[in-house]
């Protein structure tokens, strides 16, 4: 019987939540790596029992953990992330040059076809790849070699490469997003990159339509239509119908177009989900109501999904990597909050229930649909 495994990264450890396909009873395992920040865990599409986790603290730095049994046991693999060549500089908050310095891995993206190949998005922003199951890591230096890199500046969370999308129909095409540089695309497996920010408008930067410098929070793709991308920007929800070459705003009737996560329904590539947050200076929900917004039209027209979610006195946030979908029918939608709740909907968002209420602050949620 098929089932679901949710991989939850929190500020103080990782949790593995499992259920059968009904998705109404969950087993919770964890904390794994208790006391460490787990920015992200993700399973290999080619081998669902192969999982990777990014584990870090300010005290002891970065670890990468790997599991070959779906998260029951873990082993440390390589944690040496060294920038290629002389790292050079980017801009610091005060506008002065600052040498690139590795802090942590924000996002792990396993290859679609090879369990031993995995990409890592790191802070300060760079893309690394391992082709030996995480034992060794090499930077794909073409990204930081882009002519704009010396002008990249960090967002409030740091200069982080937080999103990696692998195009299933176009080998060698990868989209990445950096706060606060924007979206870049490679079509040659990482050798060369182009900014993909035309159509973005950010009033908080000197040139609101600059080619680079936008605070992109998250981008999402449906695997059946990889030329269509959706974006939650610092402000504005956007879509691209031409593989990132241009973007149009689709915020429509959202109560606020600030937020972090965005995801796409597993079976309907025009159905998307966001969680509006009040503002960049408040970072909590508007009106104390936890509302997921769903558009069935690829943007512009949005409906609030509230059934089963708290509608008063709720002031959590939902971070950029903390929403995911399963591929069962109906599609399951999941998200975690900074208050430690993980909510699930087994009916594409129509109704919600908490899987668990009192975890440490949730940083990331990924979901695997198991055979």
């Amino acid at each position, binding site marked *: 019987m098929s089932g679901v495994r949710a991989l939850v990264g929190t500020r103080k450890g990782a949790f593995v939540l499992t259920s059968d396909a009904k998705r109404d009873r969950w087993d919770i395992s964890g904390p794994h790596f208790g*006391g*460490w920040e787990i920015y992200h865990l993700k399973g290999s599409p080619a081998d669902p029992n192969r999982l990777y986790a990014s584990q870090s*603290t*300010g*005290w*002891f*730095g*970065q*670890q990468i953990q790997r599991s070959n049994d779906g998260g029951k046991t873990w082993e*440390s693999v390589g*944690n*040496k992330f*060294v920038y290629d060549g002389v790292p050079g500089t980017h801009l610091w908050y005060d506008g002065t040059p600052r040498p690139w310095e590795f802090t942590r891995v924000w996002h792990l993206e396993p290859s679609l076809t090879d369990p031993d190949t995995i990409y890592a998005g790191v802070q300060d922003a760079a893309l690394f790849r391992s082709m030996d199951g995480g034992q060794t890591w090499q930077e794909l230096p073409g990204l930081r070699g882009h002519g704009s890199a010396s002008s990249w500046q960090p967002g409030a969370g740091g200069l982080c490469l937080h999103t990696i999308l692998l195009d299933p129909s176009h080998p060698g095409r990868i989209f990445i997003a950096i706060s606060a540089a924007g979206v870049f695309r490679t079509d040659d497996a990482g050798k060369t990159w182009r900014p993909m920010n035309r159509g973005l408008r950010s009033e908080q930067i000197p040139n609101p339509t600059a080619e680079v410098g936008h605070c992109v929070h998250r981008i999402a793709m449906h695997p059946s239509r990889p030329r269509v991308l959706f974006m939650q920007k610092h402000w504005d929800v956007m879509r691209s119908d031409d593989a990132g070459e241009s973007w149009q705003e689709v915020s429509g009737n959202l109560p606020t177009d600030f937020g972090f996560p965005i995801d796409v329904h597993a079976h309907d590539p025009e159905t998307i989900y966001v969680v509006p947050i009040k503002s960049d200076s408040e970072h909590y929900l508007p009106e104390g109501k936890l509302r997921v917004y769903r558009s069935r039209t690829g943007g512009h027209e949005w409906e609030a999904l509230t059934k089963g979610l708290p509608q008063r006195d709720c002031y959590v946030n939902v971070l950029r990597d903390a929403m995911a979908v399963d591929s069962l029918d109906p599609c399951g939608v999941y998200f975690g909050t900074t208050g430690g709740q993980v909510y699930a909907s087994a009916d594409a968002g129509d109704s919600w229930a908490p899987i668990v209420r009192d975890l440490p602050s949730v940083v990331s949620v990924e979901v695997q649909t198991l055979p």
Partner: protein
Amino acid sequence: MIRVVLPAHLRTLAHVDGEVKLHVEGRATQRSVLDALEACYPMLRGTIRDHVTQQRRAFVRVFACEQDLSHEPPDAPLPDAVAMGAEPLLVVGAMAGG
């Protein structure tokens, strides 16, 4: 035999309980002890010292014999009591954070 006490998170990472006992070739210094530690427990590479610069991580301290040795040169000899195994070398995570 050199005795090393690791902070709890690094003991978990290295799958060890209690003190670590190391055989160190030549003179016992912070560098030679940490080299031996990392050779026995490769998962600790990068957790106490930076992979490239070999600088001590900012929130890690090294104590022994009631002294803070954190700012001693890495090749300075450790106290005789540590070199003889009478006292442990303490690797300490700074008290900070939440």
